[in-house]
C-alpha cells in the first residue's frame, strides 16, 4: 500500500529525514518510535504534505501512485489521514459542517454521491460513540476551547468519519491521561481493519499496550535504525533509545 524509498526531507534548509525506507502493507499497523528530534513528526507531516517541508530526495508510492506529487487535499481524498499532534483550533468553523464538507470532498473525488445533512448527522451520532465524545462538541467550532483530550478524540472522530485507507497518528497519545488514552486507543482499534493500514508515531511505549503494532521501527537522526515486532517496543522501553542508537553505530 505504501512504499517509502530513500526519503530525504528538510525544513528551512535543515535536513531532518536522511533516507527513510519503509514498506507498509494493507491490514498492518506500524509503530514508529524515536527520541525527540529524531524526525518522527517530520515523517508524518511529509506524508500528509505539509508545505513547510521540502522533500529533497527519494519517493513515496501510495497505492501505486506518486504520493509526493499530490497536493495535501488530494492525498486526503485518496485516503491518507494525519491525526495531528497539535490539532488546530478553527474559530467560527462549525465542527459538524467541517466534517461533512471534508467527507463530501472525498465522495466527489471518488464519484460517490454527496451525503445529505440528515444522513450525515445520523452517521455522526454513531461515530461519536466510538470516541465517547459528548455531542455538544459537534456544534462547537472545530477544537476551539476543547481540552487536550477532547482535541485528540476529535481527531479520531474525523478518522472515523473519513475512513482513511492509511491513517498516520502523530503522537496522538502525548499529553493524555490514562482514561483519555484508553478511549483514543479504543477508537483506533475499532477502526483497524484488514482493509486499511495505520502508522502510529509515538515517543512512548505506553500507547502500544493499547494499540498493538505488527511492526516497530526505531527512528534516530532521520533514519530507521532498527525494525522488529512489538517486542522491540518493550526492549526499547527497558534499554532506552541509546541502545538502539549504539546498535546502529556498531552495525556501521
Amino acid at each position, binding site marked *: 500500500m505504501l512504499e517509502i524509498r530513500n526519503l530525504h526531507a528538510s525544513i528551512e534548509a535543515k535536513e531532518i529525514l536522511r533516507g527513510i525506507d519503509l514498506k507498509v502493507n494493507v491490514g498492518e499497523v506500524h509503530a514508529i518510535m524515536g527520541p525527540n528530534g529524531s524526525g518522527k513528526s517530520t515523517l508524518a507531516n511529509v506524508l*500528509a*504534505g*505539509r*508545505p*513547510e517541508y521540502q522533500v529533497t530526495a527519494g519517493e513515496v508510492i501510495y497505492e501505486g501512485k506518486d504520493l509526493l506529487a499530490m*497536493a*495535501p*487535499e488530494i*492525498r*486526503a*481524498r485518496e485516503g491518507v*489521514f*494525519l491525526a*495531528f499532534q497539535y*490539532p*488546530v483550533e*478553527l*474559530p*467560527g*468553523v462549525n465542527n459538524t459542517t*467541517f466534517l461533512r*464538507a*471534508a*467527507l463530501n*470532498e*472525498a465522495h466527489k*473525488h471518488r464519484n460517490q454521491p454527496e451525503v445529505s445533512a440528515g444522513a450525515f448527522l445520523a452517521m455522526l451520532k454513531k461515530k461519536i460513540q466510538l470516541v465517547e465524545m459528548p455531542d455538544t462538541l459537534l456544534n462547537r*467550532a472545530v477544537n476551539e476551547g476543547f481540552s487536550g483530550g477532547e482535541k485528540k478524540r476529535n481527531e479520531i472522530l*474525523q478518522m472515523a468519519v*473519513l475512513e482513511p485507507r492509511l491513517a498516520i497518528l502523530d503522537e496522538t497519545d502525548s499529553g493524555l491521561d490514562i482514561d483519555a488514552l484508553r478511549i483514543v486507543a479504543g477508537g483506533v482499534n475499532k477502526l483497524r481493519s484488514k482493509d486499511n493500514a495505520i502508522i502510529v508515531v509515538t515517543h512512548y511505549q505506553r500507547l502500544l499496550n493499547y494499540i498493538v503494532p505488527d511492526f516497530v521501527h526505531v527512528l534516530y537522526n532521520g533514519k530507521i535504525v532498527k525494525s522488529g515486532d512489538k517486542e522491540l517496543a518493550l526492549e526499547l522501553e527497558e534499554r532506552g533509545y541509546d541502545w538502539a542508537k549504539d546498535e546502529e553505530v556498531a552495525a556501521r
Partner: protein
Amino acid sequence: MSETSKIREWYLSLFKDFENRLNGERSKPLHKIRRSAIDRFAELDFPNLHQEEWRFTDISPILEHSFSYAARRDDKAPSAKDVSRFMFGGMRSHTIVFVNGFYSAALSKCLQLPGNLAIGSLAEAMKTDDGQISGHISKQLDLGTDAFTALNTAFTLDGAYINVPDGAVVEDPVHILFISTGDEKLISQPRNLVITGDNSQVRFIEHYASLRTGVYFTNSVTEIEVGRNSMVDAVKVQSESAEAYHVASTVSSIGADGNYESHAVSNGARIYRHNIDVRLNGEGGNTTLEGLYLTLGEQLSDTHSLIDHAAPHCTSGEHYKGILDGKSRAVFNGKIMVRKGAQKTNSYQENRNIILSSEAKVDTKPQLEIFADDVKCSHGATVGQLSGESMFYLRSRGIGEEQAKLILIYAFASDVLKNIREDAVRSELEYVLSTRFLKGM
C-alpha cells in the same frame, strides 16, 4: 485659485441654485440651519493629510470632480423591477427608497402603522413642520467638524425620517434603500433622522447601492436619538459602485438605559469614510458597534469612531473586522472618551484585519481618553494573514485550497455577521462574501 478653493466655489454656487429652487421653504426654521452650515462650509478647508483625523485618507480625488444634483424628475428613473435585486429576499419590512438622493414614492412601501408613528421621507415630513422636526436637525452635530458634514447640512432636504413615540415598538424592520443610478458626476446628500421616545424600539437597515458603475458621490449624515430605555438596531450596508465616493457621518445620542446597536458592512466605493459618533448621555446606556469592511483593488475604507461615555454605568463594545485584498487600504481609528464622572464605565474595543495580498495595508489606532478613575477599558488590534496552520489542517482533511481559504474568511467574518438580526440581510451579506472570494477560483 487653488484646486480646493475652486471646488469650494463650485459647491457654493451649487448652493445658490439649490436655495433658489427652495421657494417657500426658505422661510422655514430649517433654512436658518442650512444658512449657518453653508457659512461654516465657506470657512472650512476640505480635510487633508495634514489633519490628524485624516492623515491616512486622501480625499483629494473627490475634489477633482464638480458633482451636481440629478434632475428630480428623471425619465431614466429605475422601475420596481430594476431595484428588486436590492430587496432582501423574503424580508417583511417598511421600505423607503431614494433614487440619487430623492424620495421615490413609487418604489417605497410602508406597512400599516399606528398614526403617531412616522416612517418615510424627511422632505415629505418637513412640508408640515414648524420646528418640531427641524429642531432635531444638527442638534448633536458639530458643524465645524469637517467640510463634508457642513456641506450635507447646508443641502439638507431629503432622507429617511423615522419617529417612534414613547412606548411604541416598530415590529418590522425599516429598509432604507439609497439607489444611485451610477450616472457620472452626480452627488446625493441624504440626511437621515431617527428619533425614538422612551421605551420604544426600532430596527432599520441603511442600504447604499448602485444600478450601474460610475463616478458619483454620496455624502450622507444620519442623526439618531435613542430615548430612555429604548432600543435602536441599525445596520448599514455600503455597496456603492467601486468607482464611487462615499463619505458618511452617523451621530447618535443615547438616553438612560437606552441601547444602540450598529452593524456596518461595506464592500463598495473607491473611497469610503465613515465617522461614527456615539454619545452615552444617561446612566445605564449601552452601545455595540460592529463592522466588517471588505476592500480590494484600489479601494480605501476608513472608519473613525468615537464613543463618548458622558454618564456613569454605561457599557460599550466595538468590534470591527477587515479583509483586504489587492492594493487596497483600510483605516480604523477607535476613540473612546470617558468623561469625568462617568464611573463604572465598561468598554472594550477590538479591530482585526486579514490581508490577502502583499500590497494591501491597514492603519489601525485605538485612542483612549479616560478622565474617570473607576472604569474598565480594553482594546486590541491585529493585522495578519490567513493562518498557514489552519489552511494545512483544512487541506489535510480533503478541502481544496480555495475552499479552505473561503471557509477561513467566512469564519473570520462570521462573528460580526452573526449579530445581524435580519436573516435575509445576513444571508445576502454572506452571499456577497462568497461571491467576492469565490471569484478567481
